[in-house]
């Protein structure tokens, strides 16, 4: 069964016909042609498909497109929409926080989401004090970024990249 949904992706509105089984990820990749979010597992296990969905980081492989009619989506490509890299992207370049690049757009979107979550004061499993404002310590960043697998294992570069983008001393 098909359905029509409207998705605003990186600032552009798309009216697309999807199968009701179509994931948000496949809607982006196979219907709209935006392949910035990657498919690594299709089961919410790797994080490669992470985008900012209405402002928060989200796994698009676990979301059905029909359930997100009207959604506003920013992919890693959209973070650099004005041609200038987002500070997180620049930090990933500066720190060589990737190799093959396949998990990278998801890592970047996730990092942008993490910095916003920290700004809002959300604690994590690694927060020493659940009532205090979290700091961008190594353990905080590593914990919050652990839903994004990197098989090239750039983890020790990803943490300082996120800290750098967040303005922390790294």
């Amino acid at each position, binding site marked *: 069964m098909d359905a029509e949904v409207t998705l605003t992706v990186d600032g552009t509105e798309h009216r697309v016909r999807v199968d009701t089984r179509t994931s948000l990820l496949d809607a982006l990749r196979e219907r709209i042609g935006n392949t910035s979010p990657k498919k690594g597992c299709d089961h919410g296990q790797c994080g490669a498909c992470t985008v900012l969905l209405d402002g928060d980081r989200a796994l698009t492989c676990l979301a059905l497109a029909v359930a997100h009619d009207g959604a506003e989506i920013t992919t890693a490509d959209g973070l650099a929409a004005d041609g200038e890299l987002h500070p997180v992207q620049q930090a990933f370049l500066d720190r060589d926080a990737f*190799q093959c690049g396949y998990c990278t757009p998801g890592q970047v979107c996730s990092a942008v989401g993490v910095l916003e979550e920290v700004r809002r004061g959300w604690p994590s499993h690694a927060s020493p004090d659940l009532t205090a404002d979290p700091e961008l310590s190594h353990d905080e960043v590593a914990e919050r970024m652990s839903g994004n697998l990197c098989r090239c294992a750039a983890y020790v570069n990803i943490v300082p990249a996120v800290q750098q983008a967040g303005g922390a001393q790294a």
Partner: protein
Amino acid sequence: MTELLDPRAIGQALVRRDGEAKVRGTATYAAETPVAHPAYAHPVQATVARGRITAVDTSAAEALDGVLAVLTHENAERLASTEDREYAVLQSAEVAFRGQLVGVVLAETSEVARQAADAVVVTYAEQEHDSELTVDHPDLYAPEQVNAGHETDTAEGDVAAAMATAHATVERTYSTAMVHNNPLEPHATTALWDPAADVPLTVWDSTQGVHPDRAAVCEVFGLEQDQVRVVCPYVGGGFGSKGTPHANVMLAVLAARALPGRPVKLALTRQQMFFLAGYRTPTIQRMQLAADRTGRLQAIAIDVVEQTSRIKEFAEQTGAPTRMMYAAPNRRTTHRVAPLDVPVPSWFRAPGECPGMFGPEVALDELAEELGIDPVELRIRNEPDVDPETGKPWSSRNLVACLREGAQRFGWADRPPPGHRDGDWLVGTGVASSVYPTMRQATSDAAVRFEQGRYVVEIGAADLGTGAWTVLPQIAADALDVPVDDVEVRIGDTRYPVASVAGGSSGTNTWGSAITVAAREFRGKFGRSPAEGDEVTGSVDQATKDEDHAAYAFGAQFAEVRVHADTGELRVPRLHGVFAAGRIVNPRTARSQLIGGMTMGLSMALHENSVWDPRIGQVANHDLAEYHVTVNADVGDVQAHWLDEHDPFVNAMGSKGIGEIGITGTAAAVVNAVHRATGIRVRDLPVTLDKVLAGLP
């Protein structure tokens, strides 16, 4: 001796040229190739571990709206060559392992393709299968050779006699788990068969080598090289699993040929990769060490048992590093493999050296403990003057320097005593050596052309995240004696001159040699003021090749492990490596490769385990939720350092290759540290808490 390039661009920590495209996600991987109106393919897999297909009913699948074709062994084209039985997709009713390809559905959308694949009804006459590796499996045999052309068995002196008379001996059996490469980009292909075109077949494939990929496709489909183009600008990780094509590539091409003129996309699911994309065999390693009072080895032996599939032999050279690492007058290495009803094993980062530096490096730690000698010192005392395997001198060997430098950086001398407790945590440190052979492939050409004031270099090389897009221009710039910004390198396409696979840590050594030959010829022919369009092609086989030395990269890894005294939880807060790998072309990308290898070694030590269910013949934990790989929070302070090593024998860059050495030895260092912390010797990887819990003090 080789005339080394004068390093100007070489040695610079340049930012990746493909970096911006990767952080934006605009670098296109194989499944993402922008093609008009693609069809989507979804495989059908065997649901028995051994048997014969007796009936196929595709009617329900074909009745679905949007289904374009359903191919099985009953209607698929007959392949030109079925000699490689891994590649002989849909050619017979025989099923050799669970998950083998038995069909493929082509449809207008990926959702319909998947639904239709589920709707194909395959009936089997199931047969008894045997998929469990055991150390005394009745079908164990000695292969003619093991991977990379190594001898199956070697022997020198009398190991048994040395074991009987030595001051100290270690005789233990170690094992490494079955592990799956799991690059983050699933194996994927976009293929277009257009019989009317000049080049009828175009394959956008995720591969570690477009030219070897093309050669395999040509062989299987009976095509000439000029009828096939393979394109792969970016690879989302390979780690060996994309070094040789697997059956999915042949299925994608087969599907495309059934739908002339229309591009077909076939991306394996993560789950399918556990059946079809290669893996590292489990290994069983029986070690024997004999030493005198001072720790000098009198004998060293490893007897390896591992598995292969019944349809295609792959025998990992796990015993290879034991042949050359340490001096000892009496030596033996053997390999025996059991042919099982299992998927086809293949390359996984540092085949041979990775598992083969586990048993021996843990056994050395056990010997050091028995003798009361520091494990760093024990390794230094067994440093061989020449390569024990060939008798050749080393092109350069700086293992001892790595051990010493690493020990100093790590603070080895001040390490806590055995069983040291810090609050609820037991703390220990461990060391192991690393090694990887320095290789150069026989085939690779590079073209250098002067184009609009710049130098364009073309070679069908691959960048798996290794940095080839960035590193090859550095080499070309120095070989041409121009600023690196004046060089453009184009890779990843069979339209460019032939290139070898990105494997065996040989890419930079091989392609860089070809580029250097071409650049030097270019300068010799056209001088410093070339005209537009001036071009030469150079070949790696024109580069000086040294046959008189044994060439290896070496390293030492130091791990600090904390084991929770109550729960057995294992943490590795520090993992430091020092490597001697010749000249480092780009310190930025090199560091990433080395820490990546070490972290994957940590993953092997603590997490990775494809749990085999021998009752049904498959990996039980076949996804990334249950097949654990190291995540960000598992990683502490991982550092990679290197020594400035000048080696005039390896190649014009003086480089040895760094893609694989980082994963060798890591797991042994971790296991040795766990022992120091807890007194528990875990000999079977991975080290999970259940293996330490019962023995905790």
